[in-house]
């Protein structure tokens, strides 16, 4: 690693830490029902949330509507926040994904499912330094590269799980493959990604 790379890495780390600290302040202000705080939250995550929702619903007008609903959901649940410190990004992303998937499922007549643990029924929790880096630009580039490296079948099951909210049984029906094959592909795909992105979790 040369000097310029090291300096860039340090600056990126500092930026990530500062951003996470800022989120702690934002949590406190959102809890006080400060509309300006929601504006700042939007400035931080609005583009990402819009992009995610657009990716899922593939319709600009509906994506705009769902972004608004997602931020309103954050706003309405902000009084339940427990931690002063903690990145809001993953929580806001989860809420946005649930909103978008609920919409898609309602179109397809499927029942609504919710992700757990960082579900919008639970307030965001404090994250360690590594976890705070997840939305860092460098990290996201690594994720994109890792997904591109997956085989077509492995990438397909990841897409269906993350951006279409399909269960493994639903995936098997969708692409007419045996459930066992889907399970194998999913397990292999996640293993590859964990290994590629190991720095996130360790």
């Amino acid at each position, binding site marked *: 690693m040369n000097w310029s790379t090291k300096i860039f890495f340090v600056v990126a780390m500092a930026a990530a830490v500062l951003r996470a600290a800022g989120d702690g302040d934002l949590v406190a202000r959102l809890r006080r029902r400060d*509309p300006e705080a*929601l*504006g700042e939250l*939007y400035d931080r995550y*609005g*583009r*990402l949330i*819009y*992009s*995610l929702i*657009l*990716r899922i619903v593939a319709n600009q007008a509906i*994506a*705009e509507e769902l*972004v*608004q609903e997602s*931020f*309103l959901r954050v*706003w309405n649940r902000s009084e339940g926040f427990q931690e002063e410190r903690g990145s809001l*990004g*993953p929580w806001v*992303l*989860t809420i946005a*994904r*649930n909103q978008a998937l609920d919409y898609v499922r309602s179109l397809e007549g499927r029942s609504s*499912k*919710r*992700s*757990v*643990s*960082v*579900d919008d029924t639970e307030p965001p*929790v404090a994250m*360690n330094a*590594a*976890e705070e880096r*997840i*939305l860092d630009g460098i*990290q*996201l580039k690594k*994720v*994109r590269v890792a*997904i591109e490296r997956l085989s077509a079948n492995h990438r397909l099951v*990841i897409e269906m*799980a*993350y*951006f279409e*909210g*399909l*269960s*493994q*049984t639903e995936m098997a029906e969708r692409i007419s493959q045996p459930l066992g094959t889907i399970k194998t592909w*999913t*397990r292999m795909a*996640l293993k590859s*990604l*964990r290994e590629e*992105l190991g720095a*996130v*979790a360790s």
Partner: protein
Amino acid sequence: MTHDEARELLELYQLGVLDEADRREVEEHLKTGCEDCRKALAEVAAFNASILASVPLVEPPPRVRDRVLAAVTPPKPRPKAQPHYLPWMAMAAALALAVWLGNEARLKNEQLIVARRQVETVTTERDRLNSALTFLSAPETRPVGAKEDIAKPRGLYFVNPQSGILLIATNLPVLPAGRTYQMWLIPKGQAPVSAGLFKPDVRGGAVHIQPGAVDVANAAAVAISVEPEAGSTAPTTTPLLVTPVAGI
């Protein structure tokens, strides 16, 4: 389900896309209090978020931010709009005031007209009564049945058990300085009781009322006498116009 089997499904579990049977088994395993899985779950949340965040970034239109903020910001009067509204509001207020004042003036005017009418009525009534009393208390006036004797003092008493005694007198002698007429009610077998002080006009005419209940049944007579200015407890001069009260 072993720990390794559960760990392999944690990403899908966190995403909420596990099939029902798998989801139940993962939850059973988490309930055993597996510390590794509990820690892993936080890592999995971050891992999943980073995959969700890896989507190609698209800039949303600025209106999205406006709509988000508008939804949580209480509506405020826009400052730019104020100079626009203010003259209209002032005009509306002035118009309302003018209407109100006009209404008030109209009401006041109506009240004044009513009051004037009342005064006119009262004045007419008073004039009518005055002329009647003047007529009655004039020296030349006499009951039709009485003899014409202009110079003689004359009086007509009216009695009402509830309202009192009224005297209409004419030709009363002019009072010396420091003197007044006093009316008396004389009960049967008792000393006279004062029934008020009065002074006649320059022509000797007087209308005097002593208000209050009168024990007419026990009254023997009414009379007047000339008394000192402050009145007396009993007549000190010879009573005039002594008139018996007829029994019921």
